[in-house]
């Protein structure tokens, strides 16, 4: 278990960590997610002993390790740029950690290389390998000493899309197989969603929110997290009606009314209503819907958004982003200026206090 208690760190004038609290449970993969400059990498460096915290405490398995040098912490680290030893073969790279500890067990090196799927690469020059293979070597090197936990600093972000996707699932499998407590830093939401047992969203040096991925991505508690995980449609509003029997409540924003799932709130309470762009259905004409929410609007713009198309719709003076497939844009002959109807379920309206 890793615990950070009120950790502060600044570089000159720049406060990178402000009383950061964090807790990684035994055997779990905790993902640190956040925009660049939010202190993710600094957090890892401090846990590994590669940076010195200004204030606060770091505990591993209950023992305070603030003053333990990195080589005595027994914490594996996987770097974004792999950081392999260019003058050593693949085998010797993996063997390094054992040798440094005075252990010379070639079988453990072999096992580690097999675990990451690199048997037969022993004598190769690591610099001649592909990015994905290099990162596998780095993984093998980190796990061979059987560390108490492993820290990974954007390990997949230098890889091409295909290698990244393949290694992503493999890392998840590997981590579960070894069962080692891991902290994984990324700014990639998909990665966080797939890899994390829990996700901690960092913002300006503190933890905004921690929770299981479903919670973070679909039911975030703060506006910052909601925006960061891609909830494009966030509207200020207030509760106008509560219907416990139907299990719904009415939320009125400045320009339109919404129906959301019932929450134990009072009428007049100020809230924020969030709707994910992919949970809205867009129709050319009002074909009737079982969903609780139906709003009319006019298309402002359509542009590509990954493999989907994002449609920007003016709804009574507010903007709403809707994700539709390319095929839908084509079939419905959507274009700017078209009048459309948007519909979504009450449970798609996520309410933040």
């Amino acid at each position: 278990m890793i615990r950070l208690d009120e950790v502060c760190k600044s570089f000159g004038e720049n406060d990178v960590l402000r009383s950061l609290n964090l807790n990684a449970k035994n055997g779990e993969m905790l993902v640190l997610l956040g925009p660049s400059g939010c202190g993710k990498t600094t957090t890892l460096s401090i846990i590994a002993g590669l940076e010195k915290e200004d204030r606060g405490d770091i505990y591993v398995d209950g023992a305070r390790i603030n003053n333990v040098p990195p080589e005595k912490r027994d914490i594996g680290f996987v770097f974004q740029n792999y950081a392999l030893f260019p003058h050593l073969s693949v085998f010797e790279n993996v063997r390094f950690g054992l040798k440094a500890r005075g252990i010379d067990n070639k079988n453990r090196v072999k096992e580690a290389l097999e675990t990451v799927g690199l048997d037969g690469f022993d004598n190769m020059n690591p610099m001649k390998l592909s990015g994905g293979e290099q990162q596998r070597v780095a993984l093998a090197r980190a796990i061979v000493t059987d560390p108490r936990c492993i820290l990974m600093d954007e390990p997949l972000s230098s890889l091409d899309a295909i290698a990244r996707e393949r290694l992503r699932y493999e890392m998840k499998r590997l981590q579960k197989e070894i069962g080692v407590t891991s902290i994984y830093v990324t700014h990639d939401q998909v990665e966080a969603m797939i890899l994390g047992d829990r996700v901690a969203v960092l913002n300006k040096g503190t933890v905004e929110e921690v929770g299981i991925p479903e919670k973070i991505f679909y039911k975030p508690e703060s506006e910052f997290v909601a925006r960061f995980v891609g909830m494009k449609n966030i509207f200020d509003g207030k509760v106008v009606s509560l219907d416990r029997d139907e299990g719904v409540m009415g939320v009125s924003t400045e320009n339109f009314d919404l129906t959301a799932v019932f929450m134990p709130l009072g009428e007049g309470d100020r809230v924020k209503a969030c709707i994910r762009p992919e949970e809205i259905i867009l129709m050319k004409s009002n074909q009737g819907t079982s969903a609780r929410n139906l709003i009319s609007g006019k298309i402002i713009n359509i542009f590509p958004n990954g493999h989907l198309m994002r449609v920007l719709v003016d709804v009574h003076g507010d903007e709403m982003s809707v994700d539709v497939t390319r095929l839908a844009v084509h079939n419905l002959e959507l274009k700017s200026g078209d009048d459309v109807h948007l519909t979504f379920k009450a449970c798609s309206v996520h309410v933040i206090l």
Partner: protein
Amino acid sequence: MVGYGLCEKRLNSIYPCSSFHILLSLIAGIFFGFIVSVIACLLTATSFTEFIDVIRSPEIFSSIILSLETSFVVVLLALFFGVPSAYFLATRRFRGSSILDTLIDLPIVSPPLVCGLAILIAFGGQGIFRHFEVLFTIKGIIIAQLFVASPFLIRSARTAFESINPDTIKAARTLGASEFYTFRKISLPLARNGIISGVVMTWARALGEFGATAMVAGCIPYRTETMTIGIYMHAMSGDLGASVALSLLLMFSAFTTLIVFKYFGRYNDPSG
């Protein structure tokens, strides 16, 4: 930079006859011609038999041995003090580190005569090191050469240490390696080529050192007469044959140095 150069090269092979191209070739030709003819003059100033005779004369032979001995000791001392100093400068940031940095480069830039004078004063009758009694001895030669030549090693080794990816060092530490173990197993091997080029440069500089050596050790035949001092003394006394023979030897060693230096300089980065 390299990419740009290659592009220029390719363009030039397509359009070889611009007037600028002709102007460039002309200026470069004059300059290279000048250098080559001066070197050729030295080469043709002696015959092979004369060369061998001169080198076998006891005084010249002893000066060659003395130069080789002192420069060898200088390289060893420079390695012993220079590599740790370089590592220190490359890995530590402290108040005044940039001043120290400049200070170490000073002997490279300042005239050797000035360095020699400084050593003369420091080790002379009133100097703080007067009890060492090194003036006009072989120890004096070694100190003068070390003073002037070791900055080349420090500079080269330091650049090599600095060019190591810091994450590699961090990775070694998280894998359980102490700072010393990391230095031995990671930093030193990775800086190897930089250190080798530094050694070669230091050796060449020590071998060719004249001004500081002459100031500190004087010009005593058989005792403190190094090759460069021999060249000067014999040229001044009209014995050009001895000077030419020694010069040719130095020229040859300089040439070898450059080849070695270029080889290790180019392959400084073991990652390719």
